[in-house]
């Protein structure tokens, strides 16, 4: 139970971000984390959404929204909605845990990242826009009421140079760029999902070893405005589709009489889902329902083909493929 004193923490301040938070929790689970996964929610998040979050998270903790009220400076960034992220510093009050890893709700975990707990406060990856600042989408911290108080004080006195939590945290942990290299997380722990990279060759070389993808920017994979366009690289499309797979793969209630396959490393007592209606509360469109029919099994099956591991002596034998072909050949001849 020693592990339970450490946790992954994320934050939801609106109903729409619940979608992202759920994908974060599921990706962590699927990659077999042994730590707790908790979500902080602000009071404005609907009760239905909280019910849904309880299915995905070990704990749902309500915190007070803390708006920086610094609208002029936030509008400089063109991101007035960021103010609410000041709520993030409430995570230091989670003193029931000895150490935590904070993950933004717009991230996606691509493999097991439990090794992050070997790092100390405050470990984070550089921000691609200004690498002397860390990006506050992924960071390791030690909950402490003292630190929390200092942060609040710092915020009140100095504000935040970008109006959001990242500016605040970077000015508070100002020694990060120069002090201890072990607190610099490799960039693969926080790859900005939708920025267009100025260093594309490096991305093509190392992008495949990404561990955590961060869909920064106003448009998220789940938002209706999110479109494929030429500005985004092929790899980024790939990550967005991974996000969808992660999301859709666990969004199905098991058919009657069929047990859902549980990840062997999943903690006992965790039930993937028991409330089919849960989805409705944050589905922007009903088409998700039909898409959600693709079950894990199918995705895993396809993944094996795409890894060159088709079960050609078993279920993937050509006679089975031919049956599928014959379905449409027969219907056309009628």
């Amino acid at each position, binding site marked *: 139970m020693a592990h339970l004193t450490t946790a992954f923490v994320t934050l939801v301040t609106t109903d729409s971000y619940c979608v992202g938070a759920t994908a974060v929790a599921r990706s962590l689970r699927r990659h077999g984390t042994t730590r707790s996964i908790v979500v902080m929610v602000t009071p404005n998040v609907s009760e239905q959404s909280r019910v849904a979050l309880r299915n995905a998270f070990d704990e749902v903790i309500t915190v007070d929204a803390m708006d920086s009220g610094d609208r002029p400076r936030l509008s400089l960034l063109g991101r007035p909605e960021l103010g609410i992220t000041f709520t993030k510093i409430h995570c230091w009050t989670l003193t029931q845990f000895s150490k935590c890893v904070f993950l933004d709700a717009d991230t996606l975990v691509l493999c097991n990242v439990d090794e992050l707990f070997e790092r100390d406060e405050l470990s984070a990856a550089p921000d691609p826009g200004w690498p002397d600042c860390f990006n506050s989408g992924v960071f390791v911290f030690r909950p402490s009421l003292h630190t929390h108080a200092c942060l609040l004080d710092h915020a009140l006195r100095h504000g935040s140079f970008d109006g959001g939590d990242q500016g605040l945290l970077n000015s508070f942990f100002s020694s990060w760029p120069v002090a201890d290299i072990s607190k610099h997380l490799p960039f693969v722990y926080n790859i900005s999902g939708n920025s267009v990279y100025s260093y594309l060759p490096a991305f093509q070389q190392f992008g495949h070893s990404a561990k955590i993808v961060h869909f920064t920017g106003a448009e998220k994979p789940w938002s209706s405005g999110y479109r*494929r366009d030429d500005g985004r690289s*092929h790899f980024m*499309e*790939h990550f967005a*589709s991974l996000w969808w797979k992660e999301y859709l793969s666990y969004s199905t209630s098991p058919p009657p009489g069929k047990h859902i396959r549980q990840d062997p490393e999943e903690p006992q007592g965790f039930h993937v889902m028991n409330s089919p209606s849960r989805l409705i509360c944050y589905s922007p469109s009903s088409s998700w329902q039909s898409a959600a029919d693709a079950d894990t099994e199918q995705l895993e*099956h*396809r993944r*094996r*083909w*795409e*890894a*060159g591991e*088709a079960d*050609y*002596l078993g279920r*993937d*034998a*050509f006679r*089975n*493929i*031919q049956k*599928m*072909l014959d379905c*449409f*050949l027969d*219907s*056309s001849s009628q």
Partner: protein
Amino acid sequence: MPLARSLSVTSLSGLEEWDEEFDVEDAVLFEIAWEVANKVGGIYTVIQTKARLTSEEWGENYFLVGPYVESNVRTQVELIEPTHPTLKRTIEKMNSSGCKVYFGRWLIEGSPYVILIDVGFTAWSLDTWKSELWDLCGIGVPWFDREANDAVLFGFLTAWLLGEYAAQCDEPPHIVAHFHEWLAGLGLVLCRQRQLSVATIFTTHATLLGRYLCAGNVDFYNKLSEFNLDKEAGDRQIYHRYCLERAAAHCAHVFTTVSQITAIEAEHLLKRKPDIVTPNGLNVKKFSAVHEFQNLHAQSKNRIQEFVRGHFYGHLDFNLDKCLFLFIAGRYEFSNKGADLFLESLARLNYLLRVNHSDVTVIAFFIMPARTNNFNVETLKGQAVRKQLWDTAQTVKERFGKKLYESLLVGQLPDVSKMLDKEDFTIMKRAIFATQRQCQPPICTHNMLEDSSDPILSCVRRIGLFNSSADRVKIIFHPEFLSSTSPLLPMDYEDFVRGCHLGVFPSYYEPWGYTPAECTVMGIPSVSTNLSGFGCFMEEHIADPSAYGIYILDRRFRGVDESCNQLTSFLFQFCKQSRRQRIIQRNRTERLSDLLDWRYLGRVLLQIPKDYFCSCKNFRMT
């Protein structure tokens, strides 16, 4: 037995009388292949040579569809506005939906229209389309197989094109889509799945699995019916490709291959018997003078003889007029192409010629590109020495001629003993000394990178044919394609073939076999096998092929040793022919060229759509 120069069309099996009722006016033919205006392998030659006949037949309604590759387009395609209004709308619609589709004329004989699709431009759809493919057929495509991913994109784009075209037509259209090879096959499957009103033809030129199995040295043709296909394909990591190929063969309205032997292969490896065999043709050059090709043979032969004089300098103890040039050419696949069998037979032939005290010398050329670092010094020196002797002879001739002229001017008959002076003899002696040579004439014209492990050289060492003067069979291995700019043998392939006496292609795996076909249209006899498409075709259509200089080796029902004996006896018989007999044989061989002309063979292909529309008149109604 003479053969009529114009063959009756009905002598080809599976071909019915021309159906005049069929109205081509409102029908369109799309021919879809990855090698349209994009040379990767042999399919390019097939499509490029066939285009002339097809566009003569279909005119403005014939479109080739291929991938857009900028470097190829720059050199072979003239981009123009689409001429056909329906097609213009189709392309505009696609381009406005995020595709890049180009239209142009392919600058080859017949200058057919081409539609070129930029596959990379639509790569962002790959995952969506792969999901669709997965949902439709349960075939997944590994992300690391670039070609297969291209095949997915190309397949979806071509199906889109055909679907859009059908939608843009005012009346229910007659569309025929002819797909070549597995790379284009997915488009066919999608046409069927989307129930487009398109008649589909799938042609496979070889099967994926066949090539792999043959290269793997299994007893291929005897085990054809025994292979566990899924396992063989899966074990070789080509399962997804094999599935795409087999799916296309399964879904096509008409399935064709290029030869009987490939038909047998397809029947077992793709589990569908081809409906029609459509042999590949050539565009046969017609000379106004019937014997022009014999003159060309003599010209080219002289050039080869010159090369041989240089190559064997110091060892020219054989009569060049009694020297026969044999050759094998092609990709360097030692056993698939039958180079092993050829070498072994040459060793046996050498023995036969020696014990029979034959005055014939055989020089066998191996034209198969391998890794080299340029020509070897000895070979180049040979040509230089020959050149020097030639120059010396010219110099002496000049001086001789001048003296002769002077003596005639003064009205005297020349005194022959004084025509050459001491200086002339010195020049000549020096030149002769330069031709002395300690070593044997080289086997290989180049420095091989993998000399010790090279299969041809290893085999030559084993059988001991080292071009010694006692050997009646000499070997020259030219591990590079021929070129008219080479300092060694400045001839292009066509001229070289014309100058040889016999092409030897004892292939084990050869779905069609353009090399013996090319020999035939140039009037050069050849040896092929009943495992090559060409051999099967000739066996089927000619009563006594060997009378026409088409020797067909039985490799299907005989062991290697027996085949080897058979090849040896073919070669020995050939050596025993007189010059006159060889000339007659070449005339007969050349007469077969009509049989290999696209004008004749292409009719089988052109007939398919007509038969198809006639047989399903209800096709459009439903």
